[in-house]
Each structure stands twice: as C-alpha cells, then as structure tokens.
C-alpha cells in the first residue's frame, strides 16, 4: 500500500511536467521513446500499473492488448475523441502502441478503491463526510443490487441486453468484448453516456450504442457501481 501511495505522489509530479510540456509546445511531434520512459507519461493518469485511481480515467490493466491498441489507433485517427487523450496521443508515435498495449494487458486488474493514505489523514477526512453525505451505505448497497440485476439480467422493458452475456458474468471479457470488472464508475458512466449520445462511435456496428440507448441515466449509474465492485472469477 505504501508503495502505491508513493506512486500517486509521483504521478502528480509527472502531471506537472506534462502540463508544462503541453503549454510550451503547441505543435507536438511524435518521437518514439523507449517503453519505460513513455510509461512515465501514461502512468501519470492511468497509474504505472494501469489501475488508474482517478475516477475519470480508465483502468487499462489486464485489458485485451488488441482492444487497447485499437483504442490508441482510434484516438490517433480521430475516430474516438476525448479532450485529454486527444492532447496526449499526438506525442506518442504509432510504433509504440503495440508495446504499450502489451505492457498494460499484462498488469493485474485491481478491484475496489485504493486504500486511504494513512500519511495524509487530513485530506481523506475532509473529503470523506462529503462523499458519505452524497450517498448513504444503504443507498449505495441498493444501487449495487440494482446494477447487478441489470448486469446479469438486462432490462426487459427496454430490451436492454444483459452486460454479462458479452462481457462475461464476472466482467473479465475476451478478445471480442473488453474487460469491465473493477473499472472506475465515473469512466463507465461517461462511456455509456457517450455511446448513447453518439459521442463515442468506434464500437463495431454500433453494438454498444444499441445497448446504451436502452439505458436510463439511473441504470447507467447503477450498473457502473456494480461493475466497480465486480471481481474476476478465480
């Protein structure tokens, strides 16, 4: 745990460097750099082990390598857009994608929120009551239960398919359907909303758009909460 916290501190440092780079160089040139050096950039937002602790950023750990590579290619080609990744991807040369994808695909997926940092209790305490106030334990448990129902059974009234059918009951995915288990809730909700609105259109034949169109905002929040807790079957 100590180790992870040290990492988080490091990310903030990298992020500073990164922002400085972004501000100084308007036209970024992609120069291939060795994997370890490149990981300093990615790790700042996705964590060095790919288990992003920033809720908006996806965990990349243990995802299918081909899926990760295609997402990078799609960002590069403008087929998938996001203000943050759009500013990062021009700095990365296409020849690096494969090794990056392989590296993150080989990391272990961690499920659940990172443990609170004991060395920074003031920050944790300050944010904890606000978070608890936002949702009681009971409300959260209800949301997870509702999410589980959607994940495993779908929604009959709107013909929304069960997520587990494709992504696997334990969310571990395969080479056709990406891993979901333990993914950050905020990220999952944003992707579902983007599929529904048509902001993300790089899913083959609109399969995920067809799924997300059949979900309400509440259902998205519930299923994302469940996915966050979902552990891969041993």
């Amino acid at each position: 745990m100590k180790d992870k916290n040290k990492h988080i501190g490091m990310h903030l440092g990298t992020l500073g460097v990164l922002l400085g780079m972004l501000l100084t160089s308007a036209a970024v040139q992609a120069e291939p750099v060795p994997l370890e050096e490149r990981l300093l950039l990615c790790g700042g937002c996705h964590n060095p082990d790919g288990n992003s602790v920033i809720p908006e950023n996806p965990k990349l750990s243990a995802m299918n390598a081909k899926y990760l590579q295609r997402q990078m290619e799609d960002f590069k080609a403008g087929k998938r857009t996001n203000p943050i990744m759009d500013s990062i991807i021009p700095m990365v040369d296409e020849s690096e994608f494969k090794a990056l994808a392989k590296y993150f695909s080989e990391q272990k997926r961690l499920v659940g929120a990172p443990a609170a940092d004991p060395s920074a209790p003031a920050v944790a305490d300050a944010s904890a009551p606000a978070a608890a106030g936002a949702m009681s334990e009971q409300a959260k448990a209800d949301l997870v239960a509702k999410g589980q129902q959607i994940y495993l059974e779908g929604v009959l009234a709107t013909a929304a398919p069960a997520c587990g059918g494709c992504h696997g009951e334990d969310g571990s995915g395969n080479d056709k359907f990406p891993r979901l288990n333990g993914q950050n809730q905020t990220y999952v909700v944003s992707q579902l909303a983007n599929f529904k609105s048509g902001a993300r259109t790089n899913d083959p034949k609109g399969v995920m758009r067809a799924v997300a169109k059949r979900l309400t905002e509440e259902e998205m929040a519930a299923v994302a909460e469940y996915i966050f807790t979902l552990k891969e079957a041993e």
Partner: protein
Amino acid sequence: MKKLLSIVIVALFSLQAAVVVAADASKPKVYGKKGYVWDEMTPERTAVLKMGGDPVKGKESFRGCQGCHKADGAGVREGVYPRLTGQHASVLIKQITEIRAGIRLNPKMLPFVEDPAISMEEIGDIAAYLNTLTTVRENGKGAEDMSAKGKKLFNDNKCFTCHGKNGEGDAAKSYPMVSAQHFDYLVREMKWIKQGVRGNSNPDMVKAIAKFSQADLEAVADYLSRLPDYRTVTAAAPAAK
C-alpha cells in the same frame, strides 16, 4: 431525324428504367411491397447454407447473443426474447440473414447480428449450435389453459400443413418449429405476421390467420406453448429426465 429522336427517347427511357430498377434492388422487398416473394433466397443465405456450420465454434459466437437469449438459448418466459433451442438451423439462418437484409424488420436485434458483430460464417455456426440444444427451463404459457380451443383452430385452419402435427415445422422447407415456444412471443409474432409489420410474412399464413381474433391468437399460442419439444415426441425414446 424523327427516327433519331425516338431512339434518343427510348434510350433515355430505358436508362431511367435501369436507374429505377437499381434503386429498387437496393431496397429490400418486404411483405406488402410489389415483388415480394416469401422464402426468396438471398445470396448471403445461399452462401451460409453452403458453408454448413460448426456447433463448437457456434457456442463461442453465441456469446454476443446471450445477453438477451440467455446462456442456455431459451430466451425469457415473458416472451420478449424467443426460445431458440432446437429450432431448425435452416430456419435460424433464414431469419438472421433476412434481418440482416432488411426483409424481416427487427430493429432491436439488427445491431447485434450485423457484420462484424456477427460474421457471415458465424451465422451458420450459431444456427448449428442452437439446433443441438435442448431446453431445461420451462417456457412461458398462457395465463389459463386454452389449448382445447387452440388445437381446434390449429387443425381447422390446417396450420399443420406447414408447422406439422407436433408443431415441429419442416427443416427442408424452412418452416419453423413452433412447439414449446413462449406464449407471449407466439402471440406477438402472429400479430406482426398478420399485420405485415414483421416484413417477411408468409402470405399463406396471413390468409390462414386473417380471421383470428385476439382471443383466437391467444388460444393457438397457448396450445403451441403447451406442446412438448417435438424431439421428445418424434423420438421413440421417452423424454430425458
């Protein structure tokens, strides 16, 4: 001069006709539209039938379908999704390729069966796989037993000509098995076939059920939903467990 003019006119005319035909060809013919022929082979369907199917590969490909049709292929008792187990492969191939071609109108299912969500080869694999499955879960039936009335309607209107005495259909002619299907699914599809909104209605079937009231449709659906899986009837051996 006059001759030349008429040649030009004829040429223009046939050009226009060609354009119209071309536009027509790109738009699938559905029931009620001129030129619709039930069971007309599409190039894709011919190709899939020729390829055959691999049930082992089909099990893996079925993954993209089981979010709705469930891992056992038995759909849901409410009939929102039909039971597919034991259906003739030829029927499944006909229906999937016709949905892809826009002949059977099923917008809810379309994105999940279009290429590359499902490739052409996978259609045959999935159909072969589903055909091998038996259903363990009980199917949805009518709220009350209307099977006596349903049976009479089924026989009086000679539904068995195509669907068979045990609701077993006919694999060679792509007539679907309708026994042990979910009640609500049967009611809905008969209604949609009758109204033509399903797209690929069989005109003879539309005629056969034209006079059916809602109560009649429900009685027939209830009768069929209570028929056992045809394979347990036609096989001499008793049903497994």
